[in-house]
């Protein structure tokens, strides 16, 4: 099986997990953290393997990785703020 096919199946599986959590109607800090982590992993997989950033210089990977970490992290912060309020 081609590596990209494996990545594709992995992405499908992870999306299934996200959907499952949504169907179960779960909430709370741990669930939010899990969902954000899954999103981060998925988007990194797309960026690295599909967009081909994995074979580029550090700068490109850092820009994309940094962007994803900041966005997912800040979303996490916002949810945490919403939970403590």
């Amino acid at each position, binding site marked *: 099986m*081609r590596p*990209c*096919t494996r*990545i*594709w199946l992995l*992405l*499908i599986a992870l*999306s299934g997990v*996200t*959907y499952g*959590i*949504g*169907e179960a109607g779960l*909430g709370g800090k741990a*669930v*939010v953290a899990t*969902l*954000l982590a*899954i*999103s981060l992993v*998925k*988007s990194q997989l*797309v*960026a690295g*393997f*599909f*967009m*081909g*950033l994995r*074979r*580029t*210089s550090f*700068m*490109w990977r850092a*820009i994309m990785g940094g*962007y994803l970490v*900041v*966005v*997912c992290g*800040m*979303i996490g912060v*916002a*949810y945490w*703020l*919403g*939970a403590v*309020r």
Partner: protein
Amino acid sequence: MSDTQTLALPRNPPGDLAIWFFIFAELLAFGIFFLAYAFARAKNVELFNQSQLLLNRESGMVNTLVLITSSYFVVRAVAAIREGFSQVCARWLLGAIGLGGVFVAVKLAEFHAKFAAGISLHTNTFYMFYLSLTIFHFMHVLMGMVILGFVAVKARRGGYSADSHTGVETGASYWHMVDLVWLILFPLVYVIR
């Protein structure tokens, strides 16, 4: 910064460098929009949680699978052209565009249901964000389909080769960006609560 010489890098990402500036600009716009959503929610948790339950999570999930798969098709298209198979490349691209069409159809059905229920930008803050974000993304899908369409037509005519196929990679990179944005948008707006 716009040629390899000044960057002094081992490798640039695939496709025309200009598209990457564009991609990062778009990602930045989406990123700030996502954060605006998240922080607006922090002030209004109840409203967001209630409204979120009324979204059609099934169609969101279907569209996630559709976009991931279409992105995968595009990867296969690039792989094909790297080996010089123009027609194979074109077929994968057409498949990806077809899936884009499925996304559009599902999304339109979803929008139709919402509009029929009388929901608009003014219903509440949640729906303002839901509609803005998804419509904004929707327009990117349409734009991506147009780009892939041009690339597919050119590939069909044998316009690319194993040595020269920047155009395919450029279109592919844009399409992956559209997919990547959705991978954050879907959990954020439809699931996380």
